[in-house]
């Protein structure tokens, strides 16, 4: 079964510092990976997906098949980045998601 690990429950950084939210997955096929974010008092929403190779709000995530990782990175954290971040690979096929435990990002001024 597909598994995902987010080793950090809480990541606290200062504004302007680089951020890396870790995600490791286990998957036998070619993975399609997502990062979802939940800001305070807002609904869970898609941040980015690796297949699009896009940068959203300054965040990028590179799929490293050798390390089975999909870490989320941003070079300069902003206070508005404070939120809960979930790494979510799909289940064995299709669009059903398995969410990691989540990492709370706190950006301090």
């Amino acid at each position: 079964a597909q598994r995902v690990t987010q080793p950090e429950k809480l990541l606290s950084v200062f504004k302007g510092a680089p951020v890396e939210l870790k995600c490791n997955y286990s998957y036998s096929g070619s993975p399609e990976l997502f990062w979802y974010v939940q800001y305070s008092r807002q609904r869970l929403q898609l941040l980015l997906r690796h297949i699009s190779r896009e940068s959203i709000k300054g965040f990028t995530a590179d799929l490293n098949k050798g390390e089975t990782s999909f870490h989320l990175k941003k070079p300069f954290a902003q206070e508005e980045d404070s939120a809960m971040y979930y790494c979510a690979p799909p289940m064995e096929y299709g669009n059903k998601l398995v969410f990691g435990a989540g990492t709370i990002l706190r950006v301090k001024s």
Partner: protein
Amino acid sequence: DAMVIQNPRYQVTQFGKPVTLSCSQTLNHNVMYWYQQKSSQAPKLLFHYYDKDFNNEADTPDNFQSRRPNTSFCFLDIRSPGLGDAAMYLCATSRDLLQVRDNEQFFGPGTRLTVL
């Protein structure tokens, strides 16, 4: 422009008293999902509908049922809530199920269920 709406936002029920949570969508998406999210845990998929086809996750308790009378609405029925069922229940939709490309899930705000 709420796209996935959940009612009520807060629901209190008594131990063993059946409760129904509601979800509606304006996106005309084929797939609707129900997740359970307990405190400090990740959302966990309970089941989903692809159109009218119901798919239960293997570890979803029998106490949880769902109905989808039409494309727009989906209900979560908890037949006999226990204290362990207290959680946030999230509804989500996606356009399709098998095509991961360009398919994101759109979440509702959730219903927080309290069991007394």
